[in-house]
């Protein structure tokens, strides 16, 4: 047998080829995973970017003094004024069906916006007012290029006649796109053009607040007990095994617990961030305990010895010296746990945070929804415009997630070189 190691025999060539193939398998796996991530986030970002724009229509409204009673400005029928304004702009529209579709160009909200304006400025009554109104979701989608404008008329949202009206509005500059402030400042709505994420965002913030206030103190105290005080015996082993298993219990089971115990036994308010936060706290607890224990373990024993050596009790040692040093690590773990809780949807569905809620919640016991649940609800809605809103809400959620993780990373980097 030759053993010359410069000679590439066929067998060696085969082995090296296999090596290359094997390495490529790993590369391809990573490429698949990463490109899935990019496609998913990319397509959602692309879909959601449309929600940042809102289409508005300008109408010339005649604030007929006969229609508005100066004594009761707020009670006038502003919807009718809007309709009249539309009919004035398109006098050729006479058929009932056509009128209806003409009215559909502007949102419901137009009447309320007009109402607010007139109530604020009663002096306008009797005059003509040029004002920009929120377009309906269909018109909004059309302007953003998401609807068909050619092909079979019966299968389109807009007939050629309607497109004609819209084009004439466009030509006179009565349609424009503006930044969609409402998306970030309002709650949910049945009308996609009016729906916003603020309600869900506030609900999420309240939920996470409750979750943090419960799980952080309990989590670090449990970690301190297990790491600093617990003796090695069967009971403490049981607690440890229990915590590890709890970390892997499906989240929906925590939801069932919340429903059966917090709602049915304790009678806490359904759909409230309080209960949502409590359920998420139980779910996050194992993560926080595990991270906090790791942080405590990272504190060198010399610090404990030093404190005990000058006569501190064990509790003083832990609370004055060990825990403060471990705090950044514990906090990092807690934020990572919170970030996971932020995306949780299933347990919140169980405790009823899935209702349609327009108002922005003002406290932790008022009914609310949460960002991921809002995404779930909108994703279920048939209107094309909700697709855009869903994607935009996902972006808001992901940005929120990234910010939390960024805080955790900064915290970790800032304090990691201490020992």
């Amino acid at each position, binding site marked *: 047998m030759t053993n010359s190691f410069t000679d590439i025999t066929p067998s060696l060539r085969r082995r090296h080829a296999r090596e290359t193939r094997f390495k490529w398998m790993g590369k391809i*796996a990573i490429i698949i995973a990463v490109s899935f*991530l990019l496609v998913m986030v990319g397509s959602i970002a692309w879909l959601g970017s449309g929600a940042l724009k809102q289409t508005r229509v300008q109408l010339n409204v005649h604030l007929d003094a006969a229609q508005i009673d100066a004594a009761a400005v707020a009670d006038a029928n502003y919807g009718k004024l809007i309709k009249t304004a539309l009919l004035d702009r398109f006098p050729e529209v006479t058929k009932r069906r056509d009128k209806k579709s003409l009215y559909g160009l502007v949102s419901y909200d137009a009447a309320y916006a007009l109402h607010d304006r007139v109530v604020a400025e009663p002096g306008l009554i009797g005059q003509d007012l040029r004002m920009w109104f929120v377009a309906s979701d269909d018109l909004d989608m059309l302007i953003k290029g998401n609807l068909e404008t050619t092909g079979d008329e019966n299968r389109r949202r807009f007939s050629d006649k309607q497109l004609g009206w819209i084009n004439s509005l466009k030509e006179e500059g009565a349609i424009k796109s503006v930044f969609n402030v409402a998306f970030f400042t309002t709650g949910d709505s049945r009308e996609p053009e009016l729906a916003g994420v603020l309600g869900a965002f506030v609900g999420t913030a309240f939920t996470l607040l409750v979750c943090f206030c419960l799980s952080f103190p309990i989590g670090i105290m449990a970690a301190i007990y297990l790491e600093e005080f617990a003796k090695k015996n069967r009971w403490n082993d049981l607690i440890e095994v229990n915590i590890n298993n709890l970390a892997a219990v499906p989240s929906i089971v925590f939801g069932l617990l919340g429903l059966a115990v917090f709602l049915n036994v304790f009678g806490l308010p359904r759909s409230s961030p309080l209960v949502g936060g409590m359920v998420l706290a139980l779910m996050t607890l194992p993560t926080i305990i595990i991270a906090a224990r790791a942080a405590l373990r990272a504190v060198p024993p010399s610090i404990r010895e030093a404190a005990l050596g000058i006569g501190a009790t064990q509790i003083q040692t832990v609370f004055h010296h060990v825990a403060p040093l471990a705090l950044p690590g514990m906090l990092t773990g807690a934020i990572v746990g919170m970030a996971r809780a932020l995306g949780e949807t299933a347990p919140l*569905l169980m405790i009823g945070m899935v209702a349609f809620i327009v108002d922005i919640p003002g406290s932790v016991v008022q009914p609310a929804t949460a960002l991921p649940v809002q995404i779930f609800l909108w994703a279920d809605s048939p209107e094309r415009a909700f697709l855009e809103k869903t994607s935009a809400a996902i972006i808001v959620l992901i940005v929120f997630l990234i910010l939390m993780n960024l805080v955790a990373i900064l915290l970790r980097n800032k304090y990691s070189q201490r020992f």
Partner: protein
Amino acid sequence: MGNLPTAPFVSSNKTRRRLGEFVVYVLLITSALVAVAVTIGIVFSLAFEAYHFFQLISWQDFLFGTKWSPQTAIRSDQVGAEGSFGVLPLVVGTLLISAIAMAIATPLGLASAIYLAEYATPRARSIIKPMLEILAGIPTVVYGFFAALMIAPFIRMTGSSIGLEVASESALAAGIAMGIMIVPLISSLSDDVINSVPQSLRDASYGLGATQAETIRKVILPAALPGISGSLLLATSTAIGETMIVVMAAGMAANLSVNPLDAVTTVTVQIVSLLTGDQEFDSAKTLSAFALGIMLFCVTLVLNVIAQKIVKHFREQYD
């Protein structure tokens, strides 16, 4: 003690301090016990409601029934008022989707773990690892949305172009999204496991003239196998308990089918659909969710306990 002087290390306020410390100590123990209380709470609350369920429906009908159509009777004399609570279609659906997910996640996760642990330069690792962590951190509701919006129509289109009948909410779509979601879980656990295989084994193999691929396939993977199988079990348990992806992409149709192109439903989907909306806590329909819940809890618990035992044993071997 009488007239003996007090020794300087006998503190007079010892009892007071002791009391304070005792309170703190009790507080600490109580916190640790909260975790135990949660487990007990889960078991009891699920078992309690499930017990009521099994008063209405026999456990044989539940476990071995092949038809799942939980209805609440509107009139008491209505035909089929009881509904059918055969869990098999849900179990088969859950297993089907989990199997698809694992079939996708296992090769991808393992191959990326091997690449990360053995081939990637530190620089490449520092880029790829965070990417996979992002993939792991994306909420499942997003995966569900993406599966329903993109993957399902794509599969349907591809299927019909080659003449296959594909349901609009196919098990395959949900399984693919879930598979990708699990990839980072498998890859990070397996990466840890592969890294804990001692360097001396690699040296021995290279010293004999093995190529890197041969070393990985014939030395490292066999040595890491227990740890890897533990991570696969954990991943399976995650797949079985996953809710949002299947709620959004798999649908409600309780078909007893193992065809990945059919619509199936899962245990978690049914729990969600049974408990959202109005509930009466005396109807078999609502209570059945808790029977499903305790089943889910037990199955995932058993998988986790086995997985953790295996991994612990593996770590002790090389520590």
